[in-house]
């Protein structure tokens, strides 16, 4: 990222300095929230994961590559000897700080990211994909702080294999070369393959939990589940799979006590700790999220790397087919994938309805809604759209809607 006017940079730096001072007075540890959710949990293994989230446990022995969005290939970051850290963030306080850098009707996630980067974690490289407008401009906004520590990946927003596979391939290759240069590493094919094996292991165990959750009502409550998926942002794939494996064993032995009224599918904008408002509403009205297709859980962990040809290019290609092609993100072209995912989950786990969470000001999600509504209505699948932001004052209203929706399902 060089094309940046240093003059504007000075302005931003000034604001940022002011914010850094301000930030000192705000606590970021969310003790109350963590306690609240942890109390609702009846799984022992979760304790560790809650700790990971509250303490933001990451491996700082290696250089840290922070990134946003699910389209960045973790495998090659690990292969060059760095720690990938997904920085997607929905911290309400961070969003408030970010508001001062980018005021206005901007997606709160982008604001939260801006605020969050004022954090203690030292990031050696920041990778930003051009998945949405907010992220694209974010790369520019953050340049004064990160200077040459930013890498911008231009990913074409058509996720059709046939049309764009070559573009993805070249974007990833370029990124890979950059990483190799930057971290002075030359991973062999074997190393790459072993990393892929590691993430595949993670996918495997995630899929098991995902399936169990869909099949047995009440086996894991939604807080635990999203803490589990959020923990994968911090933990390395092998650590995560280890704990998930233990959790899976615990789940298998668990006796479900709670009775849920309805089983629903959660779709739409990502849910990342601490913004569990929607989950609270859903749990409060005694609904079981039997399945989700959000990019913070399902999207991050569900797809495996399946390598057809074990050449270096073949592996890179396989990575694009893991990260970009099956992407359900509405920033990309291809709502058919979203529909397929919804229909399949509805069918596979016999769910009662779909709740579509639309984060206010993340407009792409909203654009999808009319199409979705129309098609799902034709298929006879009930859909509820909950549109909201990070603030908590509309909880009552949202609850009314959800409850009316549940009454409608009867």
């Amino acid at each position: 990222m060089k094309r940046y006017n240093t003059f504007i940079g000075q302005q931003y730096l000034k604001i940022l300095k002011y914010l850094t001072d301000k930030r000192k007075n705000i606590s970021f540890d969310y003790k109350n929230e963590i306690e609240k959710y942890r109390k609702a949990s009846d799984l022992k293994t979760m304790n560790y994961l809650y700790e990971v989230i509250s303490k933001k446990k990451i491996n700082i022995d290696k250089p840290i590559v922070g990134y946003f969005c699910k389209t960045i290939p973790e495998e090659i970051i690990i292969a060059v000897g760095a720690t990938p850290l997904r920085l997607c963030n929905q911290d309400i306080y961070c969003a408030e700080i970010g508001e001062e850098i980018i005021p206005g009707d901007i997606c709160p996630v982008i604001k939260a990211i801006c605020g969050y980067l004022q954090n203690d974690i030292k990031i050696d490289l920041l990778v930003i994909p051009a998945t949405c407008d907010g992220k694209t401009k974010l790369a520019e906004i953050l340049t004064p702080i990160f200077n040459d520590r930013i890498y911008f990946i231009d990913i074409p927003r058509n996720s059709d294999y046939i049309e764009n596979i070559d573009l993805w391939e070249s974007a990833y290759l370029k990124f890979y070369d950059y990483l190799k240069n930057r971290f002075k590493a030359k991973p062999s094919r074997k190393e790459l393959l072993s990393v892929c094996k590691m993430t595949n292991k993670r996918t495997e165990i995630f899929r098991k939990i995902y399936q169990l959750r869909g099949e047995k009502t009440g086996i894991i409550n939604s807080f635990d589940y999203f803490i589990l998926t959020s923990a994968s942002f911090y933990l390395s794939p092998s650590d995560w799979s280890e704990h998930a494996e233990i959790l899976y064993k615990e789940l298998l032995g668990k006796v479900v006590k709670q009775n849920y009224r309805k089983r629903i599918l959660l779709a739409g904008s990502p849910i990342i700790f601490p913004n569990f408002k929607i989950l609270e509403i859903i749990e409060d009205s005694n609904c079981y999220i039997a399945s989700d297709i959000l990019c913070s859980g399902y999207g991050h962990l569900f797809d495996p790397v399946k390598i057809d040809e074990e050449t270096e290019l073949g592996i890179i290609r396989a990575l694009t087919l893991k990260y970009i092609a099956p992407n359900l993100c509405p920033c990309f072209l291809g709502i058919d994938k979203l529909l397929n995912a919804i229909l399949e989950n509805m069918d596979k786990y016999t769910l009662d309805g779909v709740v579509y969470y639309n984060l206010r000001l993340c407009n792409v999600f909203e654009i999808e809604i009319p199409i979705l509504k129309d098609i799902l209505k034709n298929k006879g699948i009930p859909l509820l759209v909950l549109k909201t932001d990070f603030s908590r004052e509309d909880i009552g209203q949202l609850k009314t809607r959800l409850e009316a929706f549940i009454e409608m399902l009867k």
Partner: protein
Amino acid sequence: MKNKISFIRRIVQIVSFVLLIYGGYIFKTRLYTETGEKLFPKLKAPEGYISTTKFKEGSILWPSGTNPVLENYPPSLVCRFAPKGGLFKACIFHFISENLTWQTHIKYLLPHFTLFILLCFLFGRMWCGWVCPIGSLGDFITSIRKKMNIPVKRFPDSFKSSLRFFSYGIMVISFFISILIGIPNFKRFQCYWFLPYCQICPARLICPIFGLIKPGWKDFETVITSMFTILGWLVMGIFLAAFYFGRRIWCHLCPVGLINSFFNKGSGIELKKRAISCNKCGLCTDACPMGLKDMYEKDTNGIYNQNGCIMCLRCVEICPKEGCLSVSFFGKKITESKFR
């Protein structure tokens, strides 16, 4: 186990390669009982007509053995020129061209042809993906390329369809020539134009080489044999290059596979897709050795036996969504895609 289908396929390919190429050595004699002889009569050239047995050592169409173990014509490149006569008589292309020239009576052809149709009907083009020794050899070459870290070359669809067009051309021309030289007036052309495709088919060279027999690879006796020899080299070059750079690109050109592909739709073996399970990752078309796209592009449930599909089932194996792609045999599901 990971890559289960590929593993089984490898085994089947190796076994059939050994059987088809070294069958002549392994069994030595004909494995025909009397009823077998009656059921599948041996097809002979009528008086005064040419047949492969009449070619002498070193000429293009010299078969290293005269008696195949079984007198049948299965639907893949089981070559007439396999050492010591091979396990089967020849491939279907040979069968058709030969008998067009000989003008054999239909009642002798019918049993052979029925068997061929039956085999095609049962397994479709699975013969190409699982049995054909030339295809197996090609897969082996491909795996060498992979080991050497050379990425595959992908060809555009238009190129592939033009190959298919060529394939049609080869088929029509060689059948036409075969009919022509069967007409008594043109008999004198027989010794040069007999089995025109065999003369350039790479199997003619490859099969003997694997049996450590020198094929007729430099027959420069006349202008026409020289032409065929050079054409044969060329095709051989194309064949090797195709397999080296582009997986099964050759199989778009192979006329035997073309005949086989007519029976692909409606055969017992069915490739099915459950559309709502597809997440459009494109892995299936990325991994398809024939570079087919339907199973990725289309959004309908049902059977996806495309013409080009060699039923290698790589797509089923690689698809990461449970139950998205599946194979069934006469409606009974054999296996489906899963992630393990």
